[in-house]
C-alpha cells in the first residue's frame, strides 16, 4: 500500500517546523508498510497538538477530550479486537490529565499502539511546563522555574508492567517508521515515546541529538539481536558493570572489541536491562541544572517488546468460553431459567 492512501483531505495545521509533521508522515508510511486497510484502523486521541493527528489520516478517527483517549481506545479495542487501534497523545494528555488511563491500559496490556509525543511542554495552551519538564524549567506557569520532579516516561511504562517500549526522534523518520511498525506488530500495549520539538514554546529541547552528527555520538539506535554499538565512527559499545562496593549495576561505554559489549534482547521478559537502557541520558531532563557526568547515549528504537496475554483477547475469550458452555444464549432462554409462576 502507498502512504498516500492514509492521507486525509485535511490541510495539516501543525506550526511550520513542528516535529509533529515528521511523525505524521512517518505514521502514513508505517501504516502503508503494515498494509492494514484504512477502514480497519481507528485512531483515537485526546486533546493537544498531537491529538490533532487523526484528522490527517484517512482512517477512522476520534479526537476526544483531554486525557481520555486511552480509555476511549480501550473501549474500541476491547469491544472490537479485530480493529487496529492507535492512540495519539502527548506528555500532558498522557502523563498528567490522562495518567490514570495511561498506566491502566499498560497494566491491562490492551493491544493498542500508543504514540506519546514528548515535547516537554504544553503547546496548545501556549507554553506551560508539563510532567516531563525538567525541574527548574522556566515557562509561563513557572516564571521562577518549576519546583516539581518530572516523570521519565520509560520508567512509568516499565513500572506499570509495560510489554513494549520504543523511543524515537521526530527528525529520524526511518527509526520512527521502524518503531511504529514494530509497535503495530507487537501484540499488547505498545508505547512509542516520540521526542518532538516544539518550535514555538520549547525550541531545541532535543537539540543535543537533533543534529545528525550529534545524534551519532549521543544516541544509540537499538536493534534486537544486534550488538549495542554507536558513535559517528561506530567505535563505542555498551556494557554493564557492577560496582564492587555497592553491587549496583550501571551501563558503561567500552571499545567495540570489548567482549562485554551487549547484544540487544528486546524480547527478554525481565525488564531490568531494558530499564537501564531506557534511562540512559534521561538524567539531563530531571533538572535544568543536571550535570552530564557520563558519556552514555540516549537509547532510540525498540527497547522492550515481550509477548503477554492481552486484555482484549482475554475478555473476549472468557465470553466465548462461558457462551460455549451455557444452555441459555438468548433473552427468552434466560427468562425461562427464572423461578416463575403463572396467573
Amino acid at each position: 500500500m502507498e502512504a498516500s492512501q492514509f492521507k486525509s483531505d485535511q490541510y495539516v495545521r501543525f506550526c511550520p517546523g513542528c516535529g509533529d509533521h515528521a511523525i505524521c508522515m512517518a505514521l502514513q508510511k508505517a501504516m502503508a508498510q503494515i498494509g492494514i486497510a484504512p477502514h480497519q484502523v481507528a485512531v483515537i486521541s485526546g486533546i493537544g497538538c498531537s491529538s490533532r493527528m487523526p484528522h490527517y489520516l484517512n482512517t477512522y478517527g476520534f479526537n476526544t477530550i483531554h486525557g481520555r483517549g486511552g480509555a476511549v481506545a480501550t473501549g474500541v479495542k476491547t469491544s472490537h479486537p479485530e480493529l487496529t487501534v492507535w492512540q495519539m497523545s502527548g506528555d500532558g494528555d498522557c502523563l498528567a490529565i490522562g495518567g490514570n488511563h495511561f498506566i491502566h491500559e499498560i497494566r491491562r496490556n490492551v493491544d493498542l499502539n500508543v504514540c506519546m509525543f514528548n515535547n516537554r511542554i504544553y503547546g496548545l495552551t501556549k507554553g506551560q511546563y508539563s510532567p516531563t519538564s525538567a525541574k527548574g524549567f522556566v515557562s509561563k506557569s513557572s516564571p521562577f522555574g518549576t519546583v516539581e520532579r518530572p516523570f521519565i516516561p520509560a520508567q512509568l511504562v516499565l513500572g506499570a508492567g509495560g510489554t513494549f517500549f520504543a523511543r524515537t526522534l521526530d527528525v529520524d523518520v526511518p527509526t520512527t517508521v521502524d518503531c511504529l511498525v514494530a509497535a503495530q506488530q507487537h501484540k499488547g500495549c505498545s508505547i512509542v515515546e516520540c521526542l518532538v520539538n516544539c518550535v514555538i514554546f520549547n525550541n531545541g529541547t532535543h537539540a543535543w541529538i537533533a543534529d545528525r552528527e550529534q545524534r551519532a555520538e549521543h544516541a544509540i539506535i537499538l536493534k534486537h539481536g544486534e550488538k549495542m554499538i554507536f558513535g559517528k565512527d561506530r567505535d563505542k559499545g555498551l556494557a554493564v558493570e557492577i560496582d564492587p562496593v555497592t553491587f549496583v549495576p550501571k551501563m558503561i561505554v567500552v571499545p567495540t572489541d570489548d567482549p562485554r559489549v551487549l547484544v540487544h534482547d528486546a524480547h527478554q521478559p525481565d525488564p531490568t536491562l531494558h530499564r537501564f537502557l531506557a534511562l540512559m541520558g534521561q538524567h539531563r531532563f530531571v533538572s535544568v541544572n543536571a550535570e552530564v557526568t557520563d558519556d552514555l547515549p540516549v537509547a532510540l528504537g525498540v527497547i522492550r517488546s515481550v509477548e503477554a496475554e492481552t486484555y482484549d483477547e482475554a475478555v473476549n475469550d472468557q465470553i466465548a468460553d462461558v457462551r460455549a458452555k451455557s444452555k441459555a444464549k438468548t433473552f427468552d432462554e434466560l427468562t425461562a431459567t427464572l423461578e416463575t409462576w403463572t396467573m
Partner: protein
Amino acid sequence: MKNIVVRFCGDSGDGMQLTGNLFSSLSAILGHEISTLPDFPAEIRAPQGTLGGVSGFQVELGSEVYTPGDKADVIVAMNAAALKVCTLGSHFNHPQAHFDDEFALYHRHAIVIVDTDSLNDKDLEKAQYHTENPFTELGIPESVQIVPVALTTLTKEALKDSGLDNKAMLKSRNMFALGLICWLFDEPMDEAIHLLEDKFKKKPALIAPNTKVMVDGYNYGQNLALSVSQIHFDGHPNEAHGTYTSIAGNKATAWGLIAAAEKSGKHLFLGSYPITPATDIMHELAARKDMNVMVVQAEDEIAGVCTAIGAAFAGDLACTSTSGPGLSLKSEAVGLAVMAELPLVVIDVQRGGPSTGLPTKTEQTDLLQALYGRNGECPAVVIAASTSANCFDYAYEACRLALENMTPVILLTDTYLANGTALWRIPQLAELPEIHPQTVPEELKDRYNPALRDERGVRYWAYPGMEGYQHRNIGLERDAERGTISTNPENHEQMVRARQRKIAQVADRLPELKVICANGQNEVLLVGWGSTEGHLHAAANELGCDLVQFNYIHPLPKNTHEVLRQYKRIVVCELNTGQFAAYLRANFPDLPIEQYNEIQGQPFAVERIVNFVKSLVG
C-alpha cells in the same frame, strides 16, 4: 386482611436482607403482589448490637400493592438495637412517651416478634436503653402483641447435632425467624425449601442446616398457635395474565439492556466503576457472559463512560452505570457523546447527596444534574423508571432512544427502585418494541461525513470496519455540512440548534402523558416523576384526586401542558427541594405549580402526602 406490611430488623451481619428477600419471593410465588424496601447502613459491619449497625427490610404484600407500606403490621427484631430502630425509626434518640397513631412506624395492633436471648443487660446497654424494660421504654402500647422467642437458644438447639461451631450456628438465626414468619402467613414449607436450595446452590453445605432451622421455626409457630393466630389474606391478585417473577430494580435494569441488545442486533457493552447503589447492575451484567455481554470494570468513573463511548464509536450498544457522584465525574464525557452524537446509555441510580452524602439511601436529587450538569448547550434525553419492575422497560427504552436518535440517554432510577423488588410480568422478546439503530444507508458510501442527517435531524452512524465510511469524529464543534472542525460563528449557532432540535423531535414518537387514576375532579392534581409512583398512587387514591407520573422528562410528553392546565391546583411531590417543580415552572410559567418535598433519604410516607394535600385544600 387485605395487605400486610412486614418489617425485618437485625444486625447488619444477621442476614436480614436475605431473609426479607426469601420471604418476599415466596410471597410473590404464592401470588401476592409485593413491594420491598431494603434499608441498610453504609458500613458493611458496624459494631455488633449497636444502633448504627441495624439493617432493615420491609415488604408489603397483598393486592393493589403500590408501596412497601408506611406502618408495619408485623415486626421481627433480632436484638435490642433492632427493636429500637424498627419501632422508633430514625427518631430512636428521642423515645416518645406515648404511642401516636399518626407518627408511629407500626400499627396499634401489630405483632412484634423479638429474640429474648438478645435483650440482656449488655444488649440493652449497647443499644442505649436507660431502663431494664425495653418495651415500656420504647412506648410500645399494650395493644401490640409481643411474641418473645428465644431465637438464639432455639437455633442452637436445632443445630446441636450438626457439628457446626457456635459462630456458624448463630448465622442461621435468621432462618428460624423466616420459618416462623412463613408459619404466620401460612406459607408452605416445600416452596420455601426449594427457594433456599436455589439460594445456596453454590454453597451446598449450608442447605441442610439452614433448612433444619427454618423448618424448626415453622414448627415452633405451630406450637405457638394457641397464643398467636395465623394471618390470611382476603384480596386476590389483580395483575394481568402472564408469567411472573419477582425482580429487583437493578437486575431489571440490567435485563432491559440485555433485551434491547438482542432486539437491536447490537453487542452490549458496559463500562462501569463500582459505586453504591448502582453496582448490582454491573454484577448482573458481568455474570451474563452467556448473553454475550461485555463488561469493563474501568479504573475510574471517567474511564467507565469513556470505554463505553469507545464501544459506541465502534458500533456497539454502549452503557455506563453509576450514581450521583459518578455522574458528576462523567459529565465532560457525556458532553463528548452529545457533541460526537453517539448513542450512549447512562444509568444514574440516585442516592442521597451531595458529595458522598447518604450512599445507601434514596433521593431524587440528580434531576437537574442529569438535565443541565454539563458545559455548553448540551441537551440529552432524560427518562426515569417508576417501579422496580419497569426499570426493565425504561432501560430498554433508553437503549431504543439512544440507538434511534444518536444521543446519550440518561436513565434515572434510585436506591429505592434499585434494591426494592416487585412483581414482574416476564415479556417475550418478540412482544417488545422494535429498535432501528440509525446505521448509515448504503447509498452514502464514499460520500459519508459525520454531519449528514436524516429528515428528523438525526445524524447517521458509521463505524470502523465499514469500508468507504472513514471519518473523523470530534468533541470540537463541527461544520454543519462537511463534518470537519469549524470555528465559524454562524455554524456554531446552527449546530447548537440542530442538537437541540434533534432531542426535541424525540417527543414526536413518545407516548402521551396519561392521568393515572382519573377521579373525575379537576381540583387537585398530584404530579410526580420516577420512583414515587407507588406512594403517590396510594395517596391519590386516598385523597380522591388525580395523578400524573412522569417517566419522560426531557423531552416532556407533547401533551404535558394540555393535561396539567385542566387542574386548579398542581402539587409536584418530589424527594428533593423541588427540582422537577422548577423545571415545570420554567417550561410552563402560566401553570399554578405548588410543591411537596421530603429530603430524608427515605421514600415518601403516603400518610404525610395525604395530610399535606388536605391541609393545602383546607
